[in-house]
C-alpha cells in the first residue's frame, strides 16, 4: 500500500502534497531515513540536519494547510505555491546557510559557521524548500572524483568501489541514491555535469551570470556557476527556476529574466519529443577524440541516433580551439583560486594555528599548511606562479586571449544556425577509487569535455544516455548563452525518446548494498583498492 516516497520525482511529490496525500514532514522523514541509513556506505553528506529539515517541513505543511483553508476550495492558494514547496533539497557544503557549517570540503573551514544566507538559500527559503543537509565535495570544488574531500571520498551508488565524480560528488550521489530528489552543486569546469553523468542523473551548469554566486565559497570567480541536480529534466528546471535571477549583491549576475516556462516542460513524452522536429544539433568532432572510452562513444552515438530519428538534424561541426581548453583552464582557474583562497589565514574564522613566538607569517604557514589538502596547494601554487611578475603575460594574459578564441568557436557555431551541441559529458564512466589520484593530469582530463563550456560562460546539461558495462553514461547538450529553457526542452525530449529504454529510470545497482551500515565506508574501499593497486605494481608479471 505504502509507496516509497523516496522513489518519486519532485514534481510527483509536489502533486501528492497538493492533493493532501502526503505531507512535507512525511517526505522529509522518508528521505532522512534513507540518507541516515546509507551515509555510512556512501558518505554523500557532511551534515544531515534532521532537526532543521523537519522544522522547515512542518512550516511548509502549515503553509499548505493555510493555503488550502484560505484559497477558493484550496485551489488558488495551493496553485500559488512553488513546485519546490515542501520538497527536500541537498546543498553542496560550500553554500552559506545562516548559522550552519560551510566547510567547502576543507579542514581549513572546520568549525566555521556562516553568519548569513547565500542568495540561493534565501530564494529556496522563499519558495518553501526543505534543506536536508550539506553534501560532500572535493575540497574547494577542486577535483573530479570527490577523492579530494578532507572528509573522505564518496561512493557511487552504481558501484561502491567507484567515484561519483566531482567536485559535486555528494550532491550527485545523494540524488542518485534517492536521499533527496534535488540538490544544488557548483560547476567551475564540469563539477555538476561530470558527477551527474557518472551517477546517471540530470545536472545543469547554467549560463555564467544566471545564478547569483553571493554566499557561495568561491573557487574561480569567472567560471563558477551554481546549478541543479535531479533525476529528470522537469525537476532540474524547477530548481533552476527557484534559484536563478539577478541579485544586486553579485555584480556578475545578469539582469536577464528567468522564463516561467521552466516550470511547464511537457509532461507527456510524445509531446516533449515532438519539440525536436527541425532542430539542428552540432556534433563537435574535437569532443570525440582518442582517449575516449569507445563504449561511451557508442552510447553517445546511439543517443544522437535517437535525436535524428525524432526529426532533428545532426551535423558535424568544429570547435578548433577545444584542445587549448584544458591548458588555459588550468591557468585561469588556479590564478583566480590563488587569490580567492588567500582569505583563509586563520585570523578570523576556521582553522587557526598560532605558533609560540612566531610572527603572523609563521602562523599563516602553519594554518594553511595544515588546513589545505595537496590538490588545493597544487592549484594555489599553479595560480601564484601564473600571476607572478615575468610570467603574467606568458601565462595568464595569453590564457585569457585563448579563452576569447574558445568562446568565439562556440559563438560561430551557434551563429551558423545550430541550436545546441551534442557531446559526451565525460570521456569515461565512473572510475575506481585511486585510478587517477596519482596523476593530476589524468584527473584533469576527466573534465576535457566540460571545461570549455565554463571558459565560454555557456549553459550545459548532462542527461542519462544509457549504461556502459553497467555504469551510467552522460550526454552533454551545450547551448548559447541564456538558452537554459531550450536545453531543458531538449533534455526533456531526450527523456521522452528514451523512456522505454531498459536503463531509463533504473535505480542505481548498488543501492541495496548502500544500506549496509556496518560494511566498508568509501574511505575503507579506497584504502583497500590502493592496497590492491600497490600489490599489482610490485607483483611480477
Amino acid at each position, binding site marked *: 500500500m505504502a509507496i516509497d516516497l523516496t522513489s518519486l520525482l519532485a514534481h510527483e511529490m509536489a502533486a501528492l502534497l497538493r492533493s493532501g496525500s502526503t505531507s512535507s514532514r512525511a517526505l522529509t522523514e522518508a528521505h532522512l531515513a534513507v540518507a541516515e541509513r546509507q551515509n555510512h556506505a556512501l558518505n554523500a553528506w557532511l551534515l544531515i540536519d534532521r532537526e532543521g529539515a523537519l522544522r522547515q517541513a512542518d512550516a511548509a505543511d502549515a503553509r499548505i494547510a493555510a493555503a488550502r483553508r484560505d484559497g477558493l476550495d484550496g485551489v488558488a492558494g495551493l496553485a500559488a505555491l512553488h513546485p519546490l514547496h515542501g520538497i527536500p533539497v541537498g546543498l553542496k557544503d560550500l553554500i552559506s546557510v545562516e548559522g550552519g557549517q560551510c566547510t567547502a570540503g576543507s579542514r581549513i573551514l572546520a568549525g566555521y559557521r556562516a*553568519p548569513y544566507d547565500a542568495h540561493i538559500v534565501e530564494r529556496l527559503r522563499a519558495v518553501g524548500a526543505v534543506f536536508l543537509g550539506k553534501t560532500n565535495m572535493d575540497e574547494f570544488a577542486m577535483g573530479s572524483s570527490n577523492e579530494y574531500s578532507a572528509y573522505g571520498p564518496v561512493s557511487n551508488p552504481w558501484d561502491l568501489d567507484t567515484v561519483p565524480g566531482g567536485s559535486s560528488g555528494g550532491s550527485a550521489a545523494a540524488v542518485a541514491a534517492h536521499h533527496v530528489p534535488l540538490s544544488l552543486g557548483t560547476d567551475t569546469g564540469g563539477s555538476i555535469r561530470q558527477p551527474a553523468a557518472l551517477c546517471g542523473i540530470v545536472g545543469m551548469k547554467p549560463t555564467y551570470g544566471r545564478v547569483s554566486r553571493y554566499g557561495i565559497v568561491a573557487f574561480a570567480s569567472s567560471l563558477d556557476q551554481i546549478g541543479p541536480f535531479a533525476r529528470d529534466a522537469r525537476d532540474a528546471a524547477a530548481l533552476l527556476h527557484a534559484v536563478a535571477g539577478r541579485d544586486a549583491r553579485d555584480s556578475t549576475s545578469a539582469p536577464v529574466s528567468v522564463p516561467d516556462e521552466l516550470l511547464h516542460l511537457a509532461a507527456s513524452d510524445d509531446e516533449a519529443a515532438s519539440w525536436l522536429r527541425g532542430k539542428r544539433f552540432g556534433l563537435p568532432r574535437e569532443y570525440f577524440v582518442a582517449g575516449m572510452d569507445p563504449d561511451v562513444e557508442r552510447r553517445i552515438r546511439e543517443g544522437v541516433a535517437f535525436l535524428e530519428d525524432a526529426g532533428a538534424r545532426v551535423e558535424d561541426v568544429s570547435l578548433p580551439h577545444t584542445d587549448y581548453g584544458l591548458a588555459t583552464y588550468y591557468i585561469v582557474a588556479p590564478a583566480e583560486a590563488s587569490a580567492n583562497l588567500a582569505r583563509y589565514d586563520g585570523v578570523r574564522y576556521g582553522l587557526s594555528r598560532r605558533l609560540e613566538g612566531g610572527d603572523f607569517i609563521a602562523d599563516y604557514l602553519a594554518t594553511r599548511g595544515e588546513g589545505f589538502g595537496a590538490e588545493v596547494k597544487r592549484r594555489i601554487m599553479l595560480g601564484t606562479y601564473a600571476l607572478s611578475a615575468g610570467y603574467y603575460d606568458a601565462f595568464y594574459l595569453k590564457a585569457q586571449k585563448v579563452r576569447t578564441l574558445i568562446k568565439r568557436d562556440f559563438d560561430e557555431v551557434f551563429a551558423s544556425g545550430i541550436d545546441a551541441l551534442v557531446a559526451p559529458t565525460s570521456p569515461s564512466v565512473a572510475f575506481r577509487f585511486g585510478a587517477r589520484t596519482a596523476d593530476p593530469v589524468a584527473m584533469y582530463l576527466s573534465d576535457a569535455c566540460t571545461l570549455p563550456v565554463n571558459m565560454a560562460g555557456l549553459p550545459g546539461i548532462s542527461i542519462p544516455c544509457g549504461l556502459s558495462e553497467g555504469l551510467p553514461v552522460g550526454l552533454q547538450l551545450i547551448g548559447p548563452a541564456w538558452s537554459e529553457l531550450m536545453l531543458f526542452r531538449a533534455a526533456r525530449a531526450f527523456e521522452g525518446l528514451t523512456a522505454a529504454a531498459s536503463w531509463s529510470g533504473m535505480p542505481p545497482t548498488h543501492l541495496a548494498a548502500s544500506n549496509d551500515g556496518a560494511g566498508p565506508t568509501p574511505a575503507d574501499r579506497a584504502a583497500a583498492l590502493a592496497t590492491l593497486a600497490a600489490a599489482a605494481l610490485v607483483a611480477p608479471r
Partner: protein
Amino acid sequence: MPSVAFAAALDRYEPVIGIEVHCQLRTASKMFCGCSTAYDGAAPNSHTCPVCLGLPGALPVINRRAVELVLATGVAIEARTPDATRWDRKNYFYPDLPKGYQISQYDLPLAALGTMTVDTSDGPFTIRITRAHLEEDTAKLVHAPGPGGKRLSLVDFNRSGAPLMEVVTEPDIRTAEQARRYAEELQLLLRSIGASDADMDRGQMRVEANVSLRLRGTEAFGTRVEVKNMNSFKSVERAINFEIERQAALLDGGREVVQETRGWSDERGETYRMRVKESSDDYRYFPEPDLPPLRVDPAWLASIREGLPELPAARRARYRDALGLAAYDASVLVADPDASRLFEATLAADADLDATVVAHWVTGEYLKLRNAAAAGAGAAPTADPGQLAALVRLVAAGAISRGNAKEVFEEHLASGAPAEAIVAARGFRQISDAGTLGAIVDAVIAANPAAAADVRAGKVAAIGFLVGAVMKETRGQANAAAAQAALRERLGGAA
C-alpha cells in the same frame, strides 16, 4: 631654521621628491558593501558585514558615488579619464587585509596625467600628477598587552573596505616647501569638491613622500626612501628636510642610501627605519573577476564636470583679477571655505562695498573671532553677511569708528543682533556734524588753555591731548578725524 650643513647639502645635491596621498572619500557607505563609513569613535568591528570581513562567499559591489568622486578629482586636476576602467586584485598577506588581496586599480586608473600648480615662496610651481585611482582601505591593527604579558595584535575591521583614493605625483618636486604646498593645495581641492574631508590628524589624508638625492647636474635618480607617518603639513616639510640632510650626510660620508620605508617621529624630529625593501614586491595584480569593467559614459562625466564648484585656483584668480584683492588675501580667503562664503555673500549683499575692505574684515576680525570660539569649544558664531555689509557701510560713511565697529561685529557674532541695533544701543554713532562738534571743540579749547597754547606754538603733538578731551566729552562718540580737523582749524598748526 635650515642649518649651514643643509644649505651646503643643497648646493651639491638635488632632491627628487614624489608624493603619494591616500585619502578617504566622503561617501555614506563603504567601497564595496553597504556598511556605513561613520565608524569614527564606534566600538571595534561594529561597522562590518560579510563583504568587508572577507567571509567565504561574499562579493563586492561598486559604490558609484566613490567612482564619481575620483572622476571629479580627475576633472579638477585636468587628468585624462579612460573610456572604460576596471578593478584589479593586489595580492599580499597581512592580518589587516581580510581577503588576502586589496581591490585596487592597476593599469586603468580613473584619472591619469593631471597637473596641479601651487604658489610657493619662489612663485608658482606645477607638479604633474601621474594618476588617481580608487581602492579599498585596510582594517586597523591595534597592539595591546594581553594576558600573561603577551603582546596582542587586535584587528578592527570598521575601516576595512572604506573607499580610498590614491593620488600619485611624478617625481617633480624639488623642495620640502613644494611638497607641503602640494599637500595643502590637494587638501583644499578635495575639500572644495567634496571628495574628502581630508583631515590629516584623523587619518583621512595620509601623505607619503619618496625622497632621493642626486648630484646636481646629473640625471639618474638616487636610491629612494619612502617616508610615512607624517601627520601634519608641517611634519611633511620637516620630515623631507630631515631626510634630505640625512641622505646628504650618508652620501658625503661615502655611504649608500638604503632603499627602505622610514617613519617620521614628530617628537624626536627625525625619521626612523620601518622596513627595508630587499626586493621589489610582487603583488601579482590581475583583473578582479567579481566586478565587470566599468564604462565611463561621456554624459556621466559631463554631468560630473558641470556639477563641480569653482575650483580654488580659479577662485583665487577671480578674487585677484576681478575683485582686485591682493594675492595674499585671496589665498587666505580661498583656503577657508567658510571665510570665502562670508566674503562672497557680504559682497553680494552690497555690490558697492570695497572688496578689499570686506576681505580684511573677513580674514581679520571674522577669522580671529571664529577661531577663538572654535578653540574655546564655544558655539561656532555665524555672521550675517547683510549685517557685515551694513557695518562696513557705517564705517565707510564715518558713522561709527573702526574700533567701535569691531565691538559691534563681535556682539553681532555672539548675539546675532543687527549691527544698527547694536550701534544704537551702545551709542556708538559718531558725532561728525560740524556744528555739534564745533561747539564741543570750542568748549574743550576754553577748558584747556595750556594745551591749546602749546598747539598754537607749534607743539603739534599736544593736539592728541585735545582730541582725547573731545572724545572724553562725547563719551567716545566724536568722529576723531573730524574733531582733529576742527581743532586744527581753530588752533592752526600744520597738518
